[in-house]
C-alpha cells in the first residue's frame, strides 16, 4: 500500500502552550480516516499544522514521500468554520469555481469547461438550484455542501475536512458521507475531523484518537474499544469522581 500522508513527531503550541504533542501516524492512499477526540483536543490544530497553515514547533509532514510544498495544489482543505465574510459579493457557483484556481496557475482564467465542471460538482452535492444565490443566503448545511463542492472542484488527491458534519441537517450529512465514500472508492485519501463517536465506526476505516497526545491510531473497531476511548475522555468525566463514578 502506498503511503499518502506521513506525519512524524508533530508538536504545536500557541504562545508557549503546547496543544498538540508528539503525534506520529501515517495514512495509506485510499483511506477514509477520522480524527477524533474531545473538544479542545487539538484536532483542528493538528490539521492546520499538517497543512503548514500555522507554524509547528517540531515535526515532519510528507505527502506521498515528498515535502508538502510539492502537493499543495493537490490538497483540498475545508476548515471548521470558514472565516469568511458572508456578505462578500460572490455567488454559489463562483465559490465552487474557486476550487479550479489552484491548478490553473498564474494568469489563466477558468474556461467554459471549468465552469461546467464546477456546476457538476455543485450537482454532486445537490445544490445546483442555488447556483446563483449569494453565498450568505444559505443555511449552514447548504454552505458546508458548497464548500465540499469547491473541494471536489479542485480535483485533489487528498481531502482534509474539519468537522464537516457539525450543525448540519441529516440529509446534508448523508449526502456528504456518501460523497466521501465515493472519493475513497476513486482512490482519494480523506482525513476528517469528527467528534461524534456514535457514527465514527460506520463512517471511517481508520481512526486517530487524540487528546493533545496521541492516544491511538488504528482500524476503527480497534480504536473504539472502551479502554482506549476512556483514556482520551477520562478527564472530561473527572467531575464525576467525587460522586463515586470512576471512568479510568
Amino acid at each position, binding site marked *: 500500500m502506498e503511503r499518502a500522508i506521513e506525519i512524524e513527531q508533530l508538536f504545536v503550541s500557541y504562545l508557549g502552550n503546547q496543544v498538540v504533542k508528539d503525534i506520529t501516524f501515517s495514512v495509506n492512499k485510499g483511506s477514509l480516516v477520522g480524527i477524533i477526540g474531545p473538544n479542545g483536543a487539538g484536532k483542528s490544530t493538528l490539521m492546520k499544522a499538517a497543512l503548514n497553515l500555522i507554524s509547528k514547533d517540531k515535526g515532519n509532514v510528507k505527502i506521498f514521500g515528498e515535502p508538502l510544498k510539492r502537493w499543495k*495544489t493537490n490538497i483540498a482543505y475545508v476548515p471548521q468554520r470558514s472565516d469568511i465574510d458572508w456578505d462578500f459579493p*460572490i455567488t454559489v457557483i463562483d465559490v465552487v469555481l474557486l476550487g479550479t484556481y489552484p491548478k490553473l496557475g498564474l494568469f489563466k482564467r477558468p474556461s467554459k469547461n471549468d465552469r461546467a465542471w464546477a456546476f457538476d460538482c455543485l450537482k454532486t452535492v445537490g445544490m445546483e438550484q442555488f447556483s446563483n444565490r449569494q453565498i450568505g443566503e444559505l443555511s449552514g448545511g447548504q454552505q458546508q455542501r458548497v464548500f465540499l463542492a469547491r473541494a471536489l472542484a479542485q480535483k485533489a488527491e487528498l481531502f482534509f475536512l474539519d468537522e464537516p458534519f457539525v450543525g448540519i441537517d441529516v440529509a446534508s450529512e448523508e449526502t456528504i458521507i456518501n460523497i466521501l465514500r465515493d472519493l475513497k472508492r476513486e482512490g482519494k485519501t480523506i482525513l476528517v475531523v469528527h467528534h461524534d463517536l456514535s457514527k465514527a465506526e460506520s463512517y471511517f476505516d481508520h481512526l486517530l484518537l487524540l487528546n493533545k497526545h496521541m492516544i491511538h491510531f488504528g482500524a476503527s473497531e480497534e480504536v473504539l474499544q472502551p479502554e482506549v476511548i476512556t483514556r482520551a475522555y477520562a478527564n472530561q468525566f473527572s467531575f464525576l469522581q467525587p460522586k463515586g463514578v470512576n471512568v479510568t
Partner: protein
Amino acid sequence: MNFIDFIEALFQYQFLQKALFTSIMVGIICGIVGCFIILRGMALMGDAISHAVLPGVAISYMLGISFFFGAVITGVLTAIGIGYVSQNSRIKHDMAIGIMFTSMFAVGIIIITFMKSSADLYHILFGNVLAVRMSDMWMTLGIGVLVIALVVLFYKELLVSTFDPTMAQSYGLPNKWIHYALMVVLTMVTVASLQTVGIVLVVAMLITPAATAYLLTNRLSVMIYLSALIGTIASVFGLYFSFTYNLASGATIVLVSAFMFALAFFFSPSQGLMWKAMKARKNRVELMR
C-alpha cells in the same frame, strides 16, 4: 452655466481637458482599487496610507523630484510600521493605524511649513485639478494603466485571497505579499489622485464608489465595473460643479459620489432601505388579512 456650456468650455480650454482626463482616470482607478480595499476590511488602512504619504510628497516637492517616489516610500513604511506594531504588542490594528498615520501626517505638515508658499499645502491637501500639468496627466495615466493591468492579471489571486485567505494560503498564495503589493498600489493611487481630490479626500474616492457598487450587485466583477463607472460619473460632475461654481474639485467630486451612495442606500433593488421597508410592510399587510 449649464452643462452644455461646460462641454463647450471643454473644447475650448486645454487645461479643462487635462483636468477632465485626469479626473476620469482617478475615478476609474480609485473605483477599482477601492473594491478590494473595502472587501478586505481595509477602509481605515486606506485612509491611513493616503494620509501618510504627505511627508514623502513634501520632501519630493522640496527636492524637486516626482511625488511618486517619496509617496511610495513613506506609504509602504507606514504600512510596514502598522503591521509591526500590531503584531508585536497588544496594540490593536486600528490603534496602530491611528497612531502611525497621524504621526506621519504631522511630520508632513511640519515639513511643508518650511516651504515657500502655503498655497502648496492647500493644493496637496485638497487638490487643484484645474492646474494639472501635462506631466501629472501622464503620471496618472501611467499609474492607471499599471493598476488596471495588475488587477486584470492577478484578478484570480486577488479574489481568492480577499474572499478566503485560508484557502489562498493552503494552496500556496503569498497572502502577505499580496497585502503589501496592495499597499504599494494604494500609495500609487493616492499619488495619482493628489491633483484631483487631494490627500485628505482620496479615501472618499476609494470607499464611496466601491461601497455604492457593493450595494448594487452580488458579483465582484460587476462590482468593479460599477465602482469604476460611479467613480467616473462623480469625477465628471464633480469637475463640472468645481469649474462652474469655483469650488475645490476634491470636495465637489466627493459630494457627487456621496450623493450617489445615498441613492443606492435608499433605492438599491436588493439592499435599498426603501424596498426593504416596502417589502416588510407588504408582508405585514398580507398577514393581517
